[in-house]
C-alpha cells in the first residue's frame, strides 16, 4: 500500500513518519512512536481504553486514522507524571485505589484530563456522568470516582501553595 508522510506532535514532540493511510492512530502511537501506555480493548470505540487527547479533545485512538492526526497535537498518558513524580490526577488514583489491573487506566486518566481542563471543580455527579464514557472491568468505578475527587482536592492544594 502506498505510504504517505504524516507529521504529528505527540506529547510536545514532533514526529515525521511514512505510514500506510489505513494505520490506526492507536497502532501509530503504540508501535511506531513506541508509547505503549495507550491500550487497545474493544477496537470499535466502546470501551475507551485507547482514549487520547487530540487537540485537547478526548478521542478513541482505535477508531481514528493516524493520518487524521496529521498536523495536530496528541497527548497520551506518558504526558502526565513520572513514577517518582506523579501528577495530582495519578496521585489521586493511587491514593483511592482507582485501578486494579491498570489496563483501562490510561484511557480513564486522559478522559478525566479533558474533564478537569473544562471544569477544575466537578462535583461527584459530573464525574460519574463523564466516566460513563469508558469501561473498567475491575473496579466497579466507585473508587475511580473517588480518585478523581481526590485529584481535584490535590490540584486545589497545589494552587493554594502557589
Amino acid at each position, binding site marked *: 500500500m502506498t505510504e504517505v508522510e504524516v507529521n504529528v506532535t505527540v506529547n510536545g514532540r514532533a514526529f515525521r513518519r511514512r505510514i500506510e493511510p489505513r494505520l490506526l492512530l492507536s497502532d501509530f502511537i*503504540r508501535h511506531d512512536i513506541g508509547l505503549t501506555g495507550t491500550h487497545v*480493548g474493544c477496537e470499535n470505540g466502546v470501551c475507551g481504553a485507547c482514549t487520547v487527547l487530540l487537540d485537547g479533545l478526548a478521542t478513541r485512538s482505535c477508531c481514528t486514522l493516524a493520518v487524521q492526526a496529521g498536523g495536530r497535537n496528541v497527548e497520551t498518558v506518558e504526558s502526565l507524571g513520572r513514577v517518582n513524580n506523579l501528577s495530582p490526577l495519578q496521585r489521586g488514583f*493511587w*491514593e483511592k485505589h482507582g485501578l486494579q489491573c491498570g489496563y483501562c487506566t490510561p484511557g480513564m486518566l486522559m478522559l478525566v484530563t479533558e474533564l478537569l481542563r473544562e471544569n477544575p471543580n466537578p462535583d461527584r455527579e459530573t464525574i460519574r456522568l463523564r466516566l460513563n464514557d469508558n469501561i473498567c*472491568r475491575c*473496579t466497579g468505578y466507585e473508587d475511580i470516582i473517588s480518585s478523581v475527587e481526590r485529584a481535584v482536592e490535590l490540584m486545589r492544594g497545589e494552587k493554594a501553595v502557589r
Partner: protein
Amino acid sequence: MAEAGKILSPPAGRHKERPDQRLNVIGTRMLRKEDPRFLVGRGRFVDDIALPNMAHAAVLRSPHAHARIRSIDKRAAMALPGVAAVISGDEAARETGPLPCFASPPVEQRCIALGKVRHVGEPVALVVADSRYLAEDAVALIKVEYEPLPAVSDVMEAINSRGDAVLHPERGPNNVAEHRQYVFGPVEQEFARAAHVVKRHLRWARSGGQPIETCGAVASFDEGSEKFTIYVNSSMYNYIGFTIATALKVASHQVNIVPVDAGGSFGSKLFLHKVAVLAGLGARASGRAVKYIEDRIDNNTACDNHGSDRTYDVELALDSNYRMTALRYKVVDDYGAYLQYGLGTHGNGFSQTVGPYKIRAVGAEIYAVFTNKCQQGACRGFGSEVTNFMIERIVDAAVDELRLDPIQFRRDNFIQPDEFPYQIPTGNLYDSGNYPGALDLALQLLDYHAWRDKQQLMRTQGRYVGIGVASCQEKGVFSATEFWMLNRVRGFALTSSPESASIKIDATGKAVISLHAPCCGNSPETVAAMVLAEQLSMDPADISVTYSDTDHGLPGTGPGGSRYTVMIAGAVTGAAKIIKEKLKRVASHMLEAGPHDLEFRDGKIGVKGASGLEVSIAEVATRAHFFRLSLPDDPDLTSGLDASYTYDHPLATLPKSDSDFGIFYPIMGHMCHMPVVEVDAKTGQVSFLDYVAVHDCGTMVNPMTVDGHVRGGTAQGIGTALLEQFEYDKNGQPQQTSFQDYLMPRVLNLPPQVRIGHLVTPSPYTEYGVKGAGEGGRMVAPPAVACAIEDALRPLGVRIDSLPVTPARLRALIREAEARKAPSLRLA
C-alpha cells in the same frame, strides 16, 4: 459417606503465624506497589513486547458453527509480499499435538481446527506476516471450502442429536459429554419425610470475564538451543507450562514462559494454551519471533473461557419447623464445543453446595452437553457463583411459597458460629464462619427496617421498590482434586496446588521477592511486600517484587479460586522464617548474644529488653554477603541471605468415594449482600437506591484491596444479573461478538455507592488467618439482585428464575404477570 455437622476432632493447623497478634503492616491500607508503573503507562502487557525481526499473526476464523473443512487454498495468501507463513489445520497437526484438557477421557481440541470446525470463531488457518495489517489482508485471501454440518445451538436438542450433528462422535453417539449422578447423605429419606418441598426451574445464561485486554502471546524459537521463549498473559503459566511444551511437541525444558502483566483475567487468563501454541507454531514455521494477540472478535467468540451456561431443576426439602433438610437438583450445562476443565466447575460447586445452611443431604444429577459454541473455561466463581444463585433462589422460593420471613428463615437455618469446623454432606469442610454476624451487620448497615417502611410508603405511591438479601459462601484455596474427581476415568489425578516464593536480601539490606504468577488486577506485589515487611519489620519501600519465568520458577499455581493471597502469605512467611533464622545467627555473632535473645524491631535486630543494643538488617546483610571469614566456621553458615519456600495447600485430603470428596476447598469466606432496587415497570429498567455488601474473608492483609474486590466483583455480578450474555442463534451464530453487543456495566448501571461492612472471622488453618476474597461480589450479587427485583414486583407476582434480567425480559415478565392478574384486559 460424609455426615454433615460439626467435626469433633478437627484436623490440626500447620500455620506458623496466628491471627490474634499485634500486626504493624498487615491490616493497613498500604498503597499498592503495582500502581505507579500502571499510572504512568509503563506496565508491561503482552502487546508491549517487541522482539527483533518480529512478525505478526492473525487467524482465519470459522464462519460456520459446524462444518467439515473440504479444502484450503492458500496460494493467494502466500503470494502476498510480506507473508512469512500460512498454516492450515493439517499442517499444524504435524507440528503440534492436541491442546491440554482435564477431562478424562479427553476431548481433542487443536490450536487450528483439524478436519472439522465446531464453533464460529474457531481458528481455521494462521497467517504470519510482516505486520498485523498484512496478516489480516492475507487471511482475507485464503479460500476455504466448507461442507456445513447440522449446527447444534439448543442444549436440549443437543442431548438428542444423532449422526452429523454430533460434535465428537469418537466419544459416543450423542452430544452428552458426561452424565453423572451423586448422592451425598440420605436424600431420598429426607424428601420422603419432608413436610414441605419447594421446586424451581432456574436458568443461568452464558456470560464471560471478558477483560479489557484480550489474550495474546509473543513467541520465538531459537534453533541453536532448540528452545522456545514465550511471553503470554496467562496467570497460571508456571503450573501449565509443561502442557504448552507438550502441545508444541518439545520437552518441557525446551519452553521458557516469561510472564507479563495481565490486563484483567477474572479466570479467563488462567489456563491460556491456544494463543501460546499458535504463536509458538508460527515462530517455528517462520523462523521469526511471532506476536499473536486476539482481537476482540477472537476473544468474544473463541477465548475458550465462556462461563457456565446452566439450567437447573431444583427441589428443597423442609421439615415442619421450616428447617432445610435436603437439596436435590438436575443441572444441564451447555459446555460448548470442548471440555478443557472436565466437570471441574461442578466439582467446584460441590465445595459449598449447601451454602451457609445446615442441609443434611444433597442429590445432584449433572448433564454436560456439547454444542457448537465457544467452550467454557473459568469465570470468577468457577461454577460456584451459579451454585450460590441456585441455593439462594430456592431459599427465596421457600420464603415466598411458605410465607416466611427472608431474614429469620435464613438465620434459623445457618450453620452456627460454634459449629465449626463443619463438614458438609459432600465431604468438604468449612473452616470457620459467622453467618448470623454477617447478616446482622448487613441489616444494621442498610437500616433494613427503615427501608421496609420506606418500601411500603413508596408502594402506595405506585413505585416498585424491592429489598434483596443473599447470604453466600466464597470458597477459597482449591486443592486441585475438583478438576478430576468428577471424571469417569480418573486420568491426571493431580493433588497439589502449591505456591512458592523466593526472597533475596542483598548486601545492602534491600529485598527482592520472586513470585510465580503476574499481576492481573489482584495485588500480589503489595501482599508479598506487606507480609515480608511484617515478618522482618522492614520498610515495604525497601522490598521489590518480581515474577520468575518457568526456567527459574519453583512450584506455583497462580491465582484462581480465591487462593492467591492465602498462598503467597504462606510462601512468603515460610521463606521469611528461614531468612530470619539466618539473620539472627549472623546478628547473634555481631551482638554477642544468643539467637533466642534477639528480636526484629524497626528494621533492626536487637537484644530483647535492651534498647540500643541492635544492628540494622543492612549491616547484618553486608556481613552475611561479604565477610564470611568474620563469622563462625560453620559449614551450614554459607554466604548470602536468600531462601525459597513452597507452601502447600493448608488443609486438603483425597476424595474417599463418589459420595465423599474429602476436604478440597476448606478456607471458607462468606458474604451477605442487601441491594435496594427500583424497577420502572414501564421500561423494565432496574436502578439501585442502595447497596450493602458485608464480606468476611478472615484477616485482611489490605482492607483497601479487599474493598476493591468487593466493589469490582459486585459490579461484575450486577452485570451478570442485568446485562451480560453470550447468545447463539439456531444456526450457532454468536450474537455478541463485540463490546457493542456484549453489554458490561458502566457507571450508570451500578449503585452510586456500595456500602461495605467487614466482618473478620480468621481461618484457623492459614497464616495470620487470611481467607480468599478475589472472586468477591460476583459470588453473591446475582441472587441478591434477583431477590430484590422479585421483591419489588411482588405486587405483580413476578418471579425471577432466569438471568440476566434485561429490560426486554423484565417487560415480558411484567406483561405476563399483568395478563395473569387481569385476563379480561388482555382480551380487550
